[in-house]
């Protein structure tokens, strides 16, 4: 394993796989089961009552089961069951290609992140060097995915405020990005785009879209600046869902002032060559998370266009019967995403994944205590949580 060491607790905390606690550079075996995602009020107040929110509710994109403890005004406790829609993925004793079809369907909205993190772990096990064109090609599609994902979060934050015009304008841009993804890869969510040492994307065609990308970047910045000038909107976000301490990763960590970004602290993708520096802010509330995502959208447009110059499709014919162990991590739009694989004769013997949504859910419930329910949706959406990637079991 080139990037990870066993029994090392080095750097910040990334999350949990089935058996390991993951840190920036190491993984430690965990013997206890994962702790429950809940905060229960310490004092048993007779004025507290519970209400059920979810698992099926029009207010959330995915099914998620909340039990909210409140005194009628503020949220005093939350119990979350993120496993209500848990899926099992039959990956063990499957080939890399077979497993990849499942991995890219763990979180469809972040499918490029999942497939590239998984393939990077496999490539680590294979101990192969990746072609430069593939590295940059991966950056191109990861940044397109990040733009779309952040746009969705911002759009979802406009909705509870009743800000219909910016919400629809952001949806419009989101759809343009999705269509560009579809044109260059054949699929709107990058399914079947990533291979070992290869990105199946028409980079020449994407080059012809550069002017469009520059134009929609400008359009986005106009909408974003308009929202920043809107006091009614900003008031709903400032001070809502404040969290400034662990466990924080991804945009939530950067909003709270932590310089945590796998793009700058790992070597599996050459972000440093593109002079990448994480954007940091000092407000750990919903506004901070909104603001960071807005700035990162502009940054991702630039990274995507710069990386495109060196992106290429390459070919690598690997043998089917290799064995080895590998691990890799990358910065998905919601934070650090980690994969570990153990391969025997070309078949998956073990696969473990740590998703950013698990830690983001943990941070969300911590941040929601003492907020009022009308602020719940702004706060929840600001974390960019995808339930689909939390409850996955590999068998």
């Amino acid at each position, binding site marked *: 394993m080139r990037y990870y060491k066993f029994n090392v607790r080095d750097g910040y905390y990334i999350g949990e796989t089935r058996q390991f606690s993951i840190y920036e550079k190491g993984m430690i075996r965990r013997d206890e089961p994962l702790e429950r995602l809940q905060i229960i009020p310490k004092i048993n107040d007779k004025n507290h009552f519970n209400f059920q929110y979810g698992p*099926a509710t029009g207010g959330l994109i995915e099914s998620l089961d909340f039990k909210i403890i409140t005194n009628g005004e503020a949220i005093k406790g939350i119990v979350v069951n993120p496993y209500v829609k848990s*899926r099992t993925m039959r990956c063990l004793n499957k080939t890399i290609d077979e497993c990849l*079809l499942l991995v890219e369907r763990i979180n469809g909205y972040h499918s490029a992140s999942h497939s590239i993190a998984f393939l990077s772990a496999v490539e680590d096990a294979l101990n192969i060097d990746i072609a430069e064109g593939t590295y940059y090609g991966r950056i191109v599609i990861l940044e397109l995915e990040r733009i779309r994902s952040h746009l969705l979060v911002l759009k979802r934050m406009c909705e509870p405020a009743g800000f219909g015009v*910016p919400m629809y304008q952001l949806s419009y841009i989101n759809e343009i990005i999705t269509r560009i993804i579809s044109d260059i890869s054949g699929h709107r969510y990058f*399914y079947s785009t990533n291979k070992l040492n290869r990105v199946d994307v028409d980079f020449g065609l994407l080059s012809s879209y550069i002017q469009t990308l520059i134009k929609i970047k400008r359009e986005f910045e106009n909408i974003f600046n308009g929202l920043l000038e809107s006091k009614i909107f900003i008031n709903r976000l400032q001070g809502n869902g404040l969290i400034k301490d662990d466990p924080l990763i991804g945009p939530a960590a950067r909003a709270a002032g932590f310089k945590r970004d796998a793009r700058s602290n790992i070597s599996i993708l050459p972000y440093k060559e593109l002079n990448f520096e994480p954007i940091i802010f000092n407000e750990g509330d919903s506004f901070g998370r909104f603001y960071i995502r807005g700035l990162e959208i502009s940054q991702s447009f630039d990274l995507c266009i710069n990386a495109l110059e060196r992106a290429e499709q390459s070919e690598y014919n690997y043998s089917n019967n290799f064995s080895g162990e590998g691990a890799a991590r990358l910065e998905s739009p919601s934070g650090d995403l980690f994969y570990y694989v153990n391969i025997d004769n070309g078949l998956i013997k073990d696969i473990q994944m740590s998703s950013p949504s698990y830690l983001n859910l943990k941070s969300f419930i911590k941040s929601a205590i003492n907020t009022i329910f009308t602020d719940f949706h702004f706060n929840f959406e600001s974390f960019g949580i995808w339930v689909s990637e939390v409850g996955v079991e590999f068998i």
Partner: protein
Amino acid sequence: MSNQWFIKGVKKGILTEGFPQLPPEKPPLRPSLLIGSSNFKCPVGALDENKWNPEKCIFCDKCSMEMHFTGDQKLFKINRKMNAFKRSLYIYIIDSGTCGACNAELFNIFSPQYDANRYGIFLTNTPRNADVLVLMGVETEGMKSVLEETYESMPEPKCVVKMGTCAIGGAGIGSKISSLEPDALIYGCPPSPYTILEALIELKGDKP
């Protein structure tokens, strides 16, 4: 302030496209209608005795040496038209076990390019107001009873749509949703907004 957004919105003009009266402006290649015949060993068994089965296909492109994606977005089957909903159709969504992409595509039919509202298609936050229950994702233990209870709480007349390969055929991930007979099937992994919009318009007995 809201005035300022109103003006910004008006300045943009109409962004909605001519679909479905006009052909789709940007149809994805995958998913789309697949033609040809092949004895390729499909990873999810969607090529049975050389015949393509859209219920199982995950549009992975692995058979592309012999099969051909046409770009045609008519990937749905209506079992029962619901003329009672000609004027308006309120949708309640249940995610039984999705990857999130089906959910995103269903929301996308309300983006300005597609604007499902102009056909009287709306989302509702409560099954008590819903005309159609849209089911997505594979069958999961945690959501099994929720589907049935939700359906029971909907007023008559009502109908069921199963959307996406997971719900219809399992997608090689798990089991398809076994309960509730569907009035319409919308194929794709995920189905594109074009497919979803046209299927819902036909389901409500409306003319595109």
